[in-house]
């Protein structure tokens, strides 16, 4: 409570000074002295009360804000779990992407409030998939061009849905960041076909986390490396990091890829931990 003590120090000093003046024999035994002494007693009591009320009020506000933040985050996480639950092979995708982007963001030197934005954009980046027909969303195999076009609409849906939420002021950029996670640095991505610095920086971080998870998890769509079709199974780490490395300046922001490669060992450990947690959860179910 050191801050409180400083905040009220001038008032306390003033009370002390008045107390010292009243201790002077020269001012004693007058009606004004008696009245003022009683007044000072009341003032001291009220001042003490006021300090405690301010202290309690601060604590109350802090407690309420924390409770609201926790409720908001758990609601968002549950919403994401519900949406992913109908699609077995993508269950846990958004949560893993969020962990990857927070890892990249922290190593890029982002501040806590920036990581908070990144967290919600990561959690919500695929929320638009709720707007995609199941026949496309859960298709087991490669998409036709029409299906690919339909599937690509999920980014537009993500923005539409998130624009409708009254987000806290600090999270106002989340809808655009989430909507741009399929944009590519060379401008060939979607939905807005923007390139380079036109793509929000946090979207460029999510792009790396999103592709990393798609390549290193079992999915319904086959993976492919350029024109080569691969299996549905997780890709080897060596091949995954090679793709990230080769696609810098084409798909990915080189700064983000550099961080992924620089901290590859820790990144792989995070992957292992997340997949171990998911395997444990599956065994329990």
């Amino acid at each position, binding site marked *: 409570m050191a801050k409180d003590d400083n905040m009220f120090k001038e008032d306390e000093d003033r009370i002390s000074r008045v107390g010292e003046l009243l201790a002077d024999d020269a001012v004693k035994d007058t009606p004004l002295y008696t009245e003022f002494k009683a007044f000072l007693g009341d003032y001291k009591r009220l001042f003490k*009360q006021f300090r405690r009320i301010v202290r309690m009020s601060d604590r109350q506000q802090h407690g309420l804000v924390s409770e609201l933040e926790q409720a908001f985050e758990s609601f968002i996480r549950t919403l994401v779990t519900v949406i992913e639950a109908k699609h077995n092979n993508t269950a846990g995708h958004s949560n893993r992407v969020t962990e990857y982007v927070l890892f990249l963001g922290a190593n890029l030197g982002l501040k806590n409030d920036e990581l908070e934005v990144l967290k919600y954009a990561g959690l919500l980046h695929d929320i638009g998939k709720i707007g995609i027909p199941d026949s496309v969303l859960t298709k087991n195999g490669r998409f036709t061009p029409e299906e690919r076009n339909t599937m690509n609409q999920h980014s537009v849906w993500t923005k539409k849905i998130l624009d409708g939420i009254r987000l806290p002021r600090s999270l106002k950029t989340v809808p655009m960041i989430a909507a741009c996670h399929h944009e590519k640095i060379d401008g060939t991505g979607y939905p807005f076909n923007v390139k380079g610095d036109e793509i929000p920086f946090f979207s460029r971080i999510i792009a790396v986390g999103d592709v990393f998870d798609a390549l290193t998890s079992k999915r319904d769509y086959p993976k492919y490396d350029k024109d080569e079709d691969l299996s549905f199974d997780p890709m080897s780490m060596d091949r995954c990091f090679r793709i990230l490395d080769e696609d810098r300046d084409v798909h990915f922001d080189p700064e983000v890829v550099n961080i992924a490669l620089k901290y590859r060992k820790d990144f792989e450990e995070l992957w292992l931990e997340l997949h171990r947690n998911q395997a444990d959860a599956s065994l329990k179910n």
Partner: protein
Amino acid sequence: MELLKIEGAKHTPYICFDPEKHQLEITGESYPENTSEFFGRIFDWLNEYLAGINDETVTVNVKLYYFNSSSSKILMDFFTILDDAAADGKNIVANWFYEADLEEGLEYGEDFQEDIESMKFNLIEIEE
């Protein structure tokens, strides 16, 4: 003297002041739109009750989780009235209950306890 009972609502606590059992209870959250109006009749009841008791043991149980600034001022006044009555020889025990996982709960109790001189004021941890 009649029982004073007010059911808890979204912004106001449950109040049950039982003059026969000599138990006064305040539980819940306190954000009244008009704090003075809500607590006004409680103070009227309390002053009348305290004037009419002798050596009975009065137990005051308070379990409040969230309360606004005006409610904390009201609670300080509430405890001051009880403490003054204890100083006059009334037998009063106040219990401040707080949840184990909310450390602020204990601190609130300590804040209210600070000015108490004559009344017994217990801080009691509860598991939720």
